[in-house]
């Protein structure tokens, strides 16, 4: 220690002990302990942080260190220097290049594969076909329907038939060309409506569970509430038949994988995966080796958005080729192949019906969603539910009727994509509410504010809603966008619109449940003499910043700067099992697990400090790298001293923390789909300009309020909000997977698949609303997917406000919109679209009723948030039911049904007609 440093240490009264040995390389950029940041310490702990929504169980853990402060991603330095290694950047010595033989046909039987010419090509090392791996896999255990390569049949253009490993890329491609496959072409299905009918050769065979002889992969029927009277009671009804085109994640990094069997016979798979654990399982199934013989190494992930969350056939191919050839194999997709593997948002036909009664209440929602799953199941089982159940909130509703069906067609498989299953039907609901409000002559924001579920309530399907910041979201965007002076008041071609969203923050049930009591997330901590904290987590950082959030949580609890935390989250060999980055579960579950691990270390440190300073534990607080007495901050020890004391006799401190969701939900079939430990809410206002003469829409501004519970890293939350706007804007205005007349996917590149460039992006004002979720880590909920939902309807509604024309097909490309403008002109007998009338609004007397109700509700909500002795609130109370009891328990006319009645089947809706088939096992054949 230099003389100068020693002088500066005057006043450092570590009592009573001092670390006797000098600290190698000490000094550092911050040699002194900073005072605690009182602005970040909650009121409940004597700090200055306001808590309008009450305290939180993690309040006492706040050290004012990093949580809640904008923090750059802990791995950002790797990314900005080009040192971050993504899938294709893993280059192992002696590697081979793998390429895939893909089907040129939509649907065909593979009769024979002639490898002879390819095998003769110098430089070709190994070739594999479906015969090498016959076991099925799939992300959901109930619907395993994929093979590494075609066994018997190919099911879409681009489906895998064989794969080659060769010395270099040129040779591998040449070998692919030389492989001769003989096919018998089968009759393919492209229109999802055809998938509902019986067919000669369904794309998959589900055995006794097969639905009729059709291509229906999954069907759902749900009826809750006052179904019989919803139409009678309605004074306004909305009906729209939507078609949503499919969209792709278009992550900038194409999929890539490297497989390497090491000399001890273990496989390491390097892959940019969102969900390493499921690949781990699937590899074991397909390769027929135990899981412990496999190490899945998650590389940096160049964007996921759901597109890298299935176990993929090319991951199997690389492993098989590497096993056969005895050398590492790298397979990298070109952009076209990304579209063949797809897993994007389902093309969907959605019929949306909404009903409002004379009090301006939503007395019924009837949704029918037929979704196009493409050739494989993927996450489709869940998607089929999500299209319905995820619009049972944030509004209190009188009745909910949902029929959904997912069919197989001969297209690349659809799957999970940001906002999984909720995006399209949410758009339909929110546009419907805009239309209902217009019919009722009320402001659509007032309509929403008067129909919200309160905090700590249950939805009509029994989801447990804890924190809800919907009201604040709506109020904030209304104010910031100057809504009152703009809505229905702007000139032709200029419009403003509102849309809301509701999304799960983690899925209540793990995918692999037998049922089991395993945690959803586990985090391990290890601290040795150097004082740095090693965090082992399986959470997959895919750019959303999960490593950062986990590091922040640990740093916060232990009072450490972020540079003392190092995250190890790459390998299944060292990381505890985590279910992966999907369902917006990572922050909620992993940060909770990290906090509970850090609490154990915290306790060790406090005990040690108490022993050294002879102070009772309750008197101690943790500050910046220092633990001291609250009443006399001069009495305390440095972090390192406490650590070394705690390490006596036992060495490195280690701790494990885990998170598992509490028991929730009701008992009907499908009740678990959509259950989450918390939900996020959002409201966006979009301002657009529409050129009525060309149909071109430009989004100018977006005010985006999102309730994420608490922003652990506001920088990342804002990034997620703005990024979601980008992706949603693409879907609403320009992105679509275009299939030609004969079913060919026509735009398999980024030139024809139009994602917004910097010039198309509006100015987004992100507004963070913090509703302080009781179970979330420090109050946090998700911010990764929910923020995408509202942008679509907000833009649709703004287009209507601008020109009075509604669209029912997304994306609203200029040609589509122009056709609708022409139609409207013809209807109104107008020659020049410039003469179209702009929609205007004159309030009916209902407006006042709604405003009054929303004021009352606002008080109700505040009470339900702050008071501890609140009674249960079940959806239905707004309609006069007893809020404390589930309505179906007291009223027979309040339905809970998951099987369609005979009567319904006499004239089912589109997706509902999937129920006309009988499962094979019930046909008694």
């Amino acid at each position, binding site marked *: 220690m230099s003389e100068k440093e020693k002088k500066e240490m005057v006043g450092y009264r570590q009592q009573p002990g001092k670390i006797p040995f000098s600290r190698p390389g000490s000094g550092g*950029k911050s*040699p002194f302990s900073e005072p605690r940041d009182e602005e970040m310490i909650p009121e409940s702990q004597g700090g200055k942080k306001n808590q309008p929504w009450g305290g939180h169980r993690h309040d006492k853990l706040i050290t004012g260190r990093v949580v809640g402060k904008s923090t750059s991603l802990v791995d950002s330095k790797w*990314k900005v220097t*080009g040192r971050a290694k993504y899938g294709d950047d893993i280059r192992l010595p002696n590697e081979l290049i793998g390429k895939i033989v893909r089907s040129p046909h939509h649907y065909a039987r593979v009769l024979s594969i002639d490898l002879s010419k390819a095998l003769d090509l110098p430089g070709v090392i190994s070739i594999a076909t479906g015969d090498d791996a016959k076991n099925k896999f799939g992300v959901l255990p109930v619907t395993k329907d994929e093979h590494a390569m075609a066994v018997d049949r190919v099911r879409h253009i681009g489906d895998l038939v064989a794969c080659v490993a060769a010395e270099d890329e040129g040779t591998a491609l040449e070998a692919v060309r030389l492989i001769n496959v003989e096919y018998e072409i089968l009759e393919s299905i492209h229109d999802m409506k055809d998938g509902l009918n019986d067919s000669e050769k369904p794309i998959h065979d589900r055995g006794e569970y097969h639905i009729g002889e059709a291509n229906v992969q999954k069907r759902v029927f749900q009826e809750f509430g006052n179904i019989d009277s919803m139409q009678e009671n309605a004074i306004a009804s909305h009906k729209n038949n939507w078609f949503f085109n499919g969209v792709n994640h278009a992550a*900038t990094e194409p999929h890539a994988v490297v497989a390497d069997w090491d000399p001890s016979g273990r496989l390491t798979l390097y892959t940019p995966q969102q969900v390493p654990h499921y690949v781990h399982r699937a590899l074991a199934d397909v390769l027929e080796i135990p899981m412990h013989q496999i190490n899945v190494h998650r590389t940096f992930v160049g964007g996921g958005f759901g597109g890298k969350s299935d176990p993929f056939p090319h991951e199997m191919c690389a492993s098989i080729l590497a096993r056969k050839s005895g050398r590492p194999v790298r397979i990298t997709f070109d952009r076209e192949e990304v579209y063949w593997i797809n897993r994007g948002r389902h093309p969907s036909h959605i019929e949306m019906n909404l009903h409002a009664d004379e009090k301006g209440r939503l007395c019924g929602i009837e949704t029918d969603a037929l979704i196009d799953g493409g050739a494989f199941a993927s996450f489709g089982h869940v998607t089929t539910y999500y299209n319905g159940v995820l619009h049972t909130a944030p509004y209190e509703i009188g009745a909910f009727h949902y029929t959904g069906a997912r069919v197989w067609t001969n297209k690349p498989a659809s799957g999970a994509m940001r906002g999984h299953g909720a995006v399209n039907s949410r758009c339909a609901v929110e546009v419907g509410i805009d239309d209902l409000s217009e019919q009722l002559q009320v402001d659509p924001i007032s309509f929403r504010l008067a129909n919200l579920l309160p905090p700590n309530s249950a939805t009509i399907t029994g989801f447990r809603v804890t924190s809800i910041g919907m009201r604040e979201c709506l109020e904030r965007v209304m104010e910031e966008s100057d809504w009152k002076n703009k809505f229905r008041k702007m000139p032709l071609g200029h419009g403003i619109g509102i849309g809301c969203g509701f999304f799960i923050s983690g899925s209540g049930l793990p995918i692999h449940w037998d049922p089991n009591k395993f945690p959803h997330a586990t985090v391990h901590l290890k601290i040795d003499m150097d004082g740095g904290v090693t965090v082992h987590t399986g959470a997959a950082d895919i750019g959303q910043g999960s490593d950062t959030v986990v590091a922040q949580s640990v740093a916060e609890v232990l009072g450490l700067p972020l540079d003392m935390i190092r995250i190890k989250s790459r390998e299944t060999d060292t990381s505890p099992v985590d279910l992966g980055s999907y369902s917006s579960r990572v922050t909620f579950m992993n940060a909770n697990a990290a906090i509970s691990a850090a609490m154990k270390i915290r306790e060790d440190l406090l005990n040690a400090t108490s022993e050294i300073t002879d102070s009772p534990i309750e008197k101690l607080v943790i500050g910046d790298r220092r633990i001291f007495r609250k009443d006399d901050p001069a009495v305390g020890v440095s972090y390192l001293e406490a650590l070394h004391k705690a390490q006596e006799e036992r060495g490195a401190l280690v701790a494990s923390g885990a998170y598992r969701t509490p028991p929730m939900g009701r008992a009907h079939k499908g009740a678990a789909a959509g259950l989450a430990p918390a939900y996020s809410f959002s409201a966006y206002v979009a301002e657009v300009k529409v050129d009525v003469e060309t149909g071109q829409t430009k989004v100018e501004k977006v005010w985006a309020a999102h309730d994420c519970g608490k922003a652990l890293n506001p920088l990342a939350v804002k990034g997620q909000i703005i990024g979601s706007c980008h992706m949603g804007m693409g879907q609403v205005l320009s992105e679509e997977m275009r299939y030609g007349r004969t079913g060919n996917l026509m735009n398999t590149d980024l030139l024809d698949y139009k*994602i917004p460039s910097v010039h198309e992006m509006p100015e987004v004002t992100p507004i963070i609303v913090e509703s302080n979720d009781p179970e979330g880590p420090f109050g946090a909920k998700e911010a990764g997917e929910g923020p995408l939902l509202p942008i679509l309807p907000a833009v649709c509604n703004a287009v209507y406000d601008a020109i009075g024309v509604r669209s029912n097909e997304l994306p609203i490309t200029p040609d589509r919109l122009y056709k609708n403008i022409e139609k409207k002109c013809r209807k109104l007998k107008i020659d020049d679209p410039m003469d179209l009338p702009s929609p205007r609004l004159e309030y009916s007397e209902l407006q006042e009723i709604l405003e009054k109700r929303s004021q009352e509700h606002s008080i109700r909500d505040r009470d339900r948030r702050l008071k501890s002795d609140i009674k249960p609130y079940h959806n239905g109370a707004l309609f006069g039911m007893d809020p404390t009891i589930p309505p179906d328990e007291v009223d027979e006319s309040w339905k809970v049904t998951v099987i369609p009645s005979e009567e319904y089947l006499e004239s089912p809706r589109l997706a509902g007609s999937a129920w006309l088939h009988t499962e094979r096992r019930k046909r008694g054949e």
Partner: protein
Amino acid sequence: MSVIRLPMLPGSEKIPWKASINGKLISKPIESNAILLDVLRDQVGTLGVKRGCDMGTCGCCSVLIDGKPKLSCLVLAQEVSESEITTVEGLADGHHLHPIQEMFGEYGGSQCGFCTPGFLVVISALLEENPTPNDSEIKNAIEGNLCRCTGYQQIVDSVRAASELLNSGNTVSNSTEPKSNPNPGFDE
């Protein structure tokens, strides 16, 4: 179905090639039809140059050729023989990051980071030419780069901040400087 990438057929003719890459003279024989992106990734080893589309639509493969941003997936390597090529690996000065690299971290310009190298080289060229770009100049400069994560807004923020840092005369500190001391003094 067509394969977009033209196979470099085995055995195509090799020609001598040399270029200064990030200040280091590299000379190696390459195939006459080799694409610069492939040479950089597969032979030179500058894996920071990313391949997002291989057809000039994403901008991930951007590099500077004699100071001008170019899409390396659209450049024949032999065309740029004898040139000076800068990739993302060449932006930092030892352990001192380029201001735009530092600010990308700080302002959220990078999420997944895959597009980042492309943006960084393009922006470094912009700042070289115009140290105080306004928003529309920034947007025009990055219009050829796609980012799927950030929605660009925080990228533009980062450029503004980098421009300020550049013009303030301050530099980014050496990243190997000692970090936080676990045994800090207590400043009363």
